[in-house]
């Protein structure tokens, strides 16, 4: 395999349920070693896409490659190279934690026992406890232990932290970074679907925002934070109606104006030169704020004041 071959390649994916389009022409590429965020609201098509990746669903049309190969043709080989933590994890309730891990490990070529014990300790998971008696958080932890011990080249996480308490979430993400990326981080790729974006803010290298089965936006995280800006300006008099290239949203309160702008240039400079505010402060939007801005209909101050 070519070292730089994409780990995931999706082209023009369409998946219909009856007449409904769950995914409607999605394309994206995930490079090795990256953590790729797959953001969307509930029902945007995230899980359907992941199910297509795993060959749990067949695409209606379009093209999917994992490690350059077709998941429908090379399913077993490809599944040996990835691990998947679904949003609803389920285990046989009568098995203990130890039995569950032994069972899951029996399907794997690689099974790192040292890591397993380390993580069970870290999560304080009792290996004698029945899976049916675990809390939701503990079940997710158990699924993560199983995923990490297999040392897969690709880790697919579907809404992994929703419904978990903040401490468990933190541990979850630290485990993904620490234990999963332990060896050969250049070949430890993460594909995470979530709407709890702020938790993954630092981990995400690149992301796609999905809405109604289509990619609304695909960007590098650093580039996104450099492009989406919030400008707060204060004027001496009533603020003028401001129009800047890339203006997404404007709010006004008295002599203050807050603008959300998508621009690779220096919109704050343009604002200062054209409209001469008394004061002007710029900050980057976080990924979560970018997500909200990307999905919100455009709103302008004159419409807002008329309402």
């Amino acid at each position, binding site marked *: 395999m070519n070292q730089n071959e994409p780990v995931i390649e999706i082209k023009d994916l369409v998946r219909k349920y009856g007449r409904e389009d769950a995914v409607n022409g999605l394309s994206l590429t995930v490079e090795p*070693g*990256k*953590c790729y965020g797959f953001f969307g609201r509930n029902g945007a098509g995230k899980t359907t896409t992941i199910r297509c990746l795993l060959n749990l669903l067949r695409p209606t049309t379009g093209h999917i490659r994992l490690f350059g190969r077709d998941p429908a043709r090379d399913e077993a080989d490809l599944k040996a190279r990835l691990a998947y933590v679904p949003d609803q994890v389920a285990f046989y309730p009568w098995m203990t934690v130890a039995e569950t891990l032994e069972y899951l490990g029996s399907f794997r070529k690689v099974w790192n026992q040292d890591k397993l014990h380390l993580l069970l300790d870290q999560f304080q998971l009792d290996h004698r406890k029945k899976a049916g008696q675990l809390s939701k958080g503990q079940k997710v932890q158990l699924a993560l232990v199983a995923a990490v011990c297999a040392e897969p080249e690709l880790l697919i996480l579907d809404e992994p932290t929703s419904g978990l308490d903040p401490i468990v979430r*933190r541990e979850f*993400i*630290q485990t993904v*970074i*620490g234990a999963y*990326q*332990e060896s050969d*981080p*250049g070949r430890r790729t993460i594909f995470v679907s979530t709407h709890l974006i702020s*938790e993954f*803010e*630092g*981990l*995400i*290298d690149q992301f796609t925002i999905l809405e109604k089965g289509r990619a609304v936006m695909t960007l590098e*995280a*650093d580039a996104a*934070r*450099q492009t989406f*800006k919030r400008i707060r300006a204060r004027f001496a008099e009533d603020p003028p109606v401001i129009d800047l290239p890339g203006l997404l949203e404007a709010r006004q309160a008295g002599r203050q104006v807050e603008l959300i702008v998508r621009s690779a240039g*220096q919109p*704050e*400079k343009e604002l*200062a030169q054209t409209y001469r505010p*008394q*004061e*002007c402060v*710029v*900050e*980057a*939007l*976080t*990924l979560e704020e970018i997500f909200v801005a990307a999905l919100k209909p455009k709103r302008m101050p004159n419409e807002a004041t008329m309402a």
Partner: protein
Amino acid sequence: MLIQLNFKSGLPVYLQIVEQVKAAIASGILRPGESLPSIRPLAEDLRINRNTVAKAYAELENQGVIETAAGKGSFIKDSQTPYRKEVRRQLLAGAVDAAIVQAYHLQFTPAEVLELVRDRLGAFEQKNPGHALKN
């Protein structure tokens, strides 16, 4: 040293690490010969991709700020900077330009800007005795 990321700064995450390490050296929090945290704990601590930390350390190594000994970690180098004066001048000019843009927005006069620079130099020397800019 404690690194704190600010996602609202608009600065790429790896560059925030680079700049904070350099600032820590300039202010004496990190001294030549001292080690940087290793990649895994720092990545876990900041909850960022290990590759991002690795990229920051590679950049620091490129700039001659740290050196990495295989299996031992990364260490702060002696402050002998490998850059020629002209390159160093350009790097600093970039930072000064950013401050000038900000000064423009905040409506400072050139004289006020220069006065503030003198003021801040004094504050730096007072806060970090022994690490004053050298003549």
